[in-house]
């Protein structure tokens, strides 16, 4: 039986090999998993069916961090893919790697007709070097938005989401008085708590324009409004207005919001679809821009998600195939529209956005207001502080922050002391990173 299966498989492989003999193959690795991973795999299939010259061999790596780890390991043994999907936090490692083919140069060399100006500035700036050249192709992009339960807010007579954090604090108090058991679900994710908060209020996370100015940057968030912001969270927690929801508790913030446990949360717009698919039956909810400190001075939120990097050291034939693929997956109709339709991610260019609007995409009751993410990303001109964060080994700094916030929120440590400690240890991490790349300038 086994032998029979083996024979059959061989026959199939041979047959398909014969069919695809003339196709140029190249490898594409992606980090998305689960439903989202299937969307990427389907994207590859669609590309392969759309033409008969090239074939993308697409392999899921089982997670964003795994995709980065595996690509590094593969590069070191010269087995790396031609294109790889790398998450936002991996951007700086790839820029300094010397292992990549910068996107602008690649597009030039292989005649990819890309209108770089068309990318939303908040997105373009994030993936660009200090001189403004984009080194990777934005693929799946998101940003953080405020999810709120309309019925819970209706109990305190509100029909709109709070615009400022102070207003939100008042709402939480009123909701508690009105008998809402949990007004706000939060966790210790630095992306929402620190990074998006700092970007939307235009306050620094680190010196040297959050690290865009060079590897010598130092963390600065222990002296900004971030500390008071976290103290507010703590007081909301202590007063019983808010709850910590992590996957270790059994429900993360998205689940706690979708099943109606908590009346509001802040998370990625990419979860918009998830909330719809998993929500409690009659939950009435909407999304809005994150609250800020001063509504008149709102700046744009930061992009999250991942982009596609072209790796160096491949043959021109493979690059040609890769170019065709990139053209397909970044085009407004076959790329952006496909991603936006099948996931909660947003279009990344004005052209893609216009196309979706013209199609009535956001009229669908399931997607109403999903483009609030675009409003949030384009809320202001991109400032040096809302542009992004370019710090070495930022994953470790995020982990430090999480640990110390856990200590502070469980009362083991004072908030200021905890954040001071993150900054001190984070700076040691940055200095090690700087030393590792001694003599290398950040592009």
């Amino acid at each position, binding site marked *: 039986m086994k032998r029979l299966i083996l024979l059959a498989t061989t026959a199939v492989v041979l047959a398909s090999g014969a069919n695809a003999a003339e196709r140029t193959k190249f490898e594409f690795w992606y980090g998305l998993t689960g439903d989202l991973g299937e969307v990427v795999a389907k994207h590859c299939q669609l590309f392969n069916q759309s033409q008969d010259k090239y074939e993308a061999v697409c392999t899921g790596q089982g997670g964003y961090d795994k995709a980065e780890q595996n690509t*590094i390991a593969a590069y070191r043994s010269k087995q790396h893919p031609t294109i790889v999907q790398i998450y936002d936090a991996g951007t700086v*490692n790839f820029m300094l790697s*010397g292992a990549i083919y910068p996107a602008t140069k690649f597009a030039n060399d292989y005649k990819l007709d890309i209108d770089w100006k068309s990318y939303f500035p908040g997105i373009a700036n994030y993936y660009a070097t200090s001189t403004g050249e984009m080194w990777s192709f934005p693929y799946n992009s998101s940003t953080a938005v405020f999810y709120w339960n309309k019925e819970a807010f209706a109990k305190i007579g509100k029909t709109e989401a709070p615009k400022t954090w102070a207003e939100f604090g008042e709402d939480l108090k009123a909701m508690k008085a009105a008998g809402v058991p949990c007004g706000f679900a939060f966790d210790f994710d630095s992306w929402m708590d620190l990074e998006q908060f700092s970007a939307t209020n235009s306050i620094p996370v680190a010196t040297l324009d959050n690290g865009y100015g060079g590897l010598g940057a130092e963390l600065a968030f222990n002296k900004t409004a971030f500390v008071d912001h976290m103290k507010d969270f703590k007081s909301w927690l202590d007063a019983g207005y808010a709850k910590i929801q992590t996957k270790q508790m059994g429900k993360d913030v998205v689940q706690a919001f979708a099943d109606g446990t908590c009346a509001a949360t802040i998370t990625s717009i990419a979860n918009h679809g998830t909330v719809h698919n998993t929500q409690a039956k009659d939950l009435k909810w909407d999304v809005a821009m994150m609250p800020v400190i001063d509504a008149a001075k709102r700046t744009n939120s930061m992009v999250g998600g991942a982009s596609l990097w072209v790796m160096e050291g491949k043959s021109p034939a493979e690059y040609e195939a890769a170019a065709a693929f990139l053209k397909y997956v970044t085009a407004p109709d076959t790329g952006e529209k496909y991603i936006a339709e099948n996931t909660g991610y947003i279009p990344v260019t004005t052209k893609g956005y216009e196309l979706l609007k013209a199609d009535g995409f956001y009229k669908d009751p399931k997607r109403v207001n999903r483009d609030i993410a675009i409003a949030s990303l384009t809320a202001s001109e991109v400032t040096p502080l809302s542009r992004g964060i370019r710090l070495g*080994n930022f994953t470790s700094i995020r982990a430090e922050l999480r640990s110390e916030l*856990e200590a502070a929120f469980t009362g083991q440590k004072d908030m200021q002391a905890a954040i001071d400690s993150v900054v001190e240890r984070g700076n040691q991490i940055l200095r090690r990173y700087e*030393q590792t790349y001694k003599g290398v300038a950040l592009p």
Partner: protein
Amino acid sequence: MEKRATFSNLWLAAAFIAPQMLLIFVFFYWPSGEALYWAVTLEPPFGGGNQWVGLQNFMTVFEDPKYWNSVRVSLTFAFSATVLSLAIAALLALFVDRRLPGHQVYKFTFFLPYALAAPAVGLAFRFIFSPDAGFVSVINQAFPGLWNPALNGYDAFTLIVLAQSWKMVGYNFIFFLAALQSIPRTISEAGAMDGASVLRRMWDIQLPLITPTLFFLIVINITDSFVDSFGIVDITTSGGPARATELMVYKIYTDGFQGKDYSLAAAQSIVLMVLVIALTFIQFRFVERRVHYR
């Protein structure tokens, strides 16, 4: 005079041991050597351009209070999990050895947990013990806030100790049972005829006679809790809350694979390796003296 089988042809002898030596070289000496090289240099993630930094990585590791925290957590974890799983396994084995009705079924079911991979165990424990949604959430409804491994470090630590012990119980059980069954029945029966109760026979006859197995299992359990506990921690607590469950092996993973600081992780691996070797050495040097082999 003692008779010995020897090889007159040394080359043939060398050829016989070569495959094993090759395996040890490829899977132990080579990676360890590489780790040592990384530990004394600064290694960029994508390779190339290592800078010699001497002992700087080790200094960074030893000067970090959070590292000493992970050493403390690891040692406490190894001790608690080993004692707990050995005690439970010995108890189970002693009773199965009494051939109570259904002992064959017990023998089979007790061993099953060991067949599970650590991450699977972690996932199961996360669901069972999650404070909001798990089976244990019933307790929290009766006594709010009593159990919360996501926020309370002691609860989280208890959780990983339970998971690790549960995983190892089956393995320990099989070894204990085999040891118990190799004790000649006549000894126990003689004790019984002299009027010793069941518990007295277990305590005075059976347990002393299985000390070689106990010693072997202590070594295996401690080593396993140092190097194989990663999956459990990663799935249940991710080292939190506030580093209460950050074992040395998990810190190596976060620094090396998530942080991509390979040199720092390599230095920590070397320290961990030395520690495990030292612990094993101590066990053989001092504990083994009290073990009587038959």
